[in-house]
């Protein structure tokens, strides 16, 4: 793509709503940064409550993302290689948690894993594993849909070529299918992780809000704004930290471009 060569023919007047949209996304974040009390910022983000919430968020977010990869990539492959009708049904099933209010997801998880639920015997509710399950539930669709799209787009022609050259199914998966879908997988993992560490509703209902055990960053921020535990200044600081984490993840992934390093 040459610089300025791919401008296309969009009407210039569209710049106005485009700028309004951009401002709507950027301005609230600027307002948030403006409210940060820099004098106490370091103390706020290094307080024990903040650090344990951050550690819990990152830890559970990573485990949830890992779980999503382990079950999500195979599910995405399966959907991508199904016939159109079955694929449509499966895609709809995967999309349901995406359009469901997370609160409802939390209630649903509670009825499955809660003490009186079908799988209540596992004793998972209101524990750290419950946080991971809640995050996995809401984040999995993002990964599956992104990976499924990438795998379907790259098609089966390269896989057929590889098979004709004598490659087995695992070799094709490892050396052809996954590398070709790498951009989609990376995008899916980023979305998945971002959704996992930002998860609030399902976690609150299914895992609760116990500092150090189930109180992740979003819950800590909510609690702080309600005036309990940490101060409101700390809440703003935590929010900024969450924002910074999200941006850091994005930049990290941008820096690692699949295929470029080979």
């Amino acid at each position, binding site marked *: 793509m040459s610089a300025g060569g791919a401008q296309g023919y969009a009407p210039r007047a569209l710049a106005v709503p485009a700028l309004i949209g951009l401002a709507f996304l950027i301005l609230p974040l600027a307002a948030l940064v403006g409210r940060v009390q820099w004098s106490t910022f370091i103390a706020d983000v290094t307080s024990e409550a903040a650090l344990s919430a951050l550690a819990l968020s990152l830890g559970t977010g990573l485990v949830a993302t890992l779980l999503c990869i382990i079950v999500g990539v195979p599910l995405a492959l399966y959907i991508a290689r199904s016939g159109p009708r079955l694929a449509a049904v499966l895609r709809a099933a995967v999309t349901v948690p995406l359009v469901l209010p997370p609160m409802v997801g939390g209630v649903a998880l509670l009825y499955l894993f809660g003490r009186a639920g079908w799988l209540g015997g596992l004793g998972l509710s209101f524990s750290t594993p419950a946080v991971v399950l809640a995050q996995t539930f809401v984040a999995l669709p993002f990964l599956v849909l992104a990976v499924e799209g990438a795998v379907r787009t790259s098609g089966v022609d390269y896989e057929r*070529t590889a098979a004709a050259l*004598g490659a087995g199914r695992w070799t094709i998966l490892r050396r052809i299918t996954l590398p070709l879908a790498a951009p989609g997988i990376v995008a899916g993992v980023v979305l998945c992780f971002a959704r996992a560490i930002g998860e609030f509703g399902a976690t609150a209902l299914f895992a609760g809000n116990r500092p150090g055990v189930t109180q992740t960053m979003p819950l800590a921020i909510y609690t702080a704004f309600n005036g309990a535990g940490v101060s409101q200044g700390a809440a703003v600081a935590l929010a900024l930290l969450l924002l910074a984490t999200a941006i850091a993840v994005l930049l990290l992934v941008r820096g690692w471009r699949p295929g470029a390093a080979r």
Partner: protein
Amino acid sequence: MSGLSAHIVVAREHFAVDIALDVAPGETVAVMGPSGAGKSTLLQALAGLEPLTAGEISVGDRVVDRVEAPRVRTEPKNRGIVLLGQDARLFPHLTVRENVAFGPRAGGADARAARDAADEWLIRVGLPGAGDRMPRELSGGEGQRVAVARALAASPRAVLLDEPLVALDPETAGEIRRMLRDQLAGTTTIAVTHDAADAVALAERLIVIESGRVTQSGPVREVLAEPASGFVASIAGVNRVVGVARGGGWSNGELHLTSTDAASRALAATDGAPLVAVFRPQDVRVVDAATNPDACRTRITRLESTLAGIRVHTPFCQVDVSLADAAGLAPGDPLQLQVDPAGVRFVAAR
């Protein structure tokens, strides 16, 4: 011992392919046919990408596909058949070297040995030192060279070519054709092509497929010299006109041709036998009716510009004339033709 032998039956709604073919070890057979005749279906079935309705495929004495009991269905990866198409389909995320080394590595070869062998293959296909390049940096011709190296590095038992030259400019196509002929020598090959020049350059035998059936087969030049159908005549660039033997020559209504070829005259000996006259458009001359009362009388239906001059279409045959001779000719004009008996061959009608 057999290189590749197959009887392929694929039935679809409105369309059925029923083709038997036998390729000797190391032989190259060209397959030609009109669009939609079933050439692609044939290759897909051989490669294992299209299930057979009936029949059997064996490669090097091993049955890889059989519908009748005992049923056999070998996965594409275990057939040892590699398909080379118009699109080189190089793996875009791997270097040229890793592309070529893919087959051997998938077969369990040591990675370093496979890469060294890949560099050797690149030299053989005329791309020395290209190993570190990425497929997107290659031209169309270079991509096909790499595809050939990758296919042959996998030591296939048979190679299928699906018009690998059509997307290339004529000069590059010529170079790749020469490279293919050199590199495929000794490899059992089936080459589907639209171009008779490919068939002549690459193959020993030609199989013609029309409407899902083999309509003619034999040594390439023999098939082209004795076209059994209008399609073969068109790819060979000759006129093929059906008539009957009469008076030691060929006749169709008031048209009459003779031949100096001994075999042709023998065929024309039986009066009334169906007979096909074959002659090149260049061997037809436009003559004056007054001085040549026995010339074929016909009418111009269409004039077509060609590289050499003008091709005159008539209901009877096609005639090549020079630009100077074509001056004054127009569709609808009457025309008297004479065909040099030295350029006429008779073929038994089938």
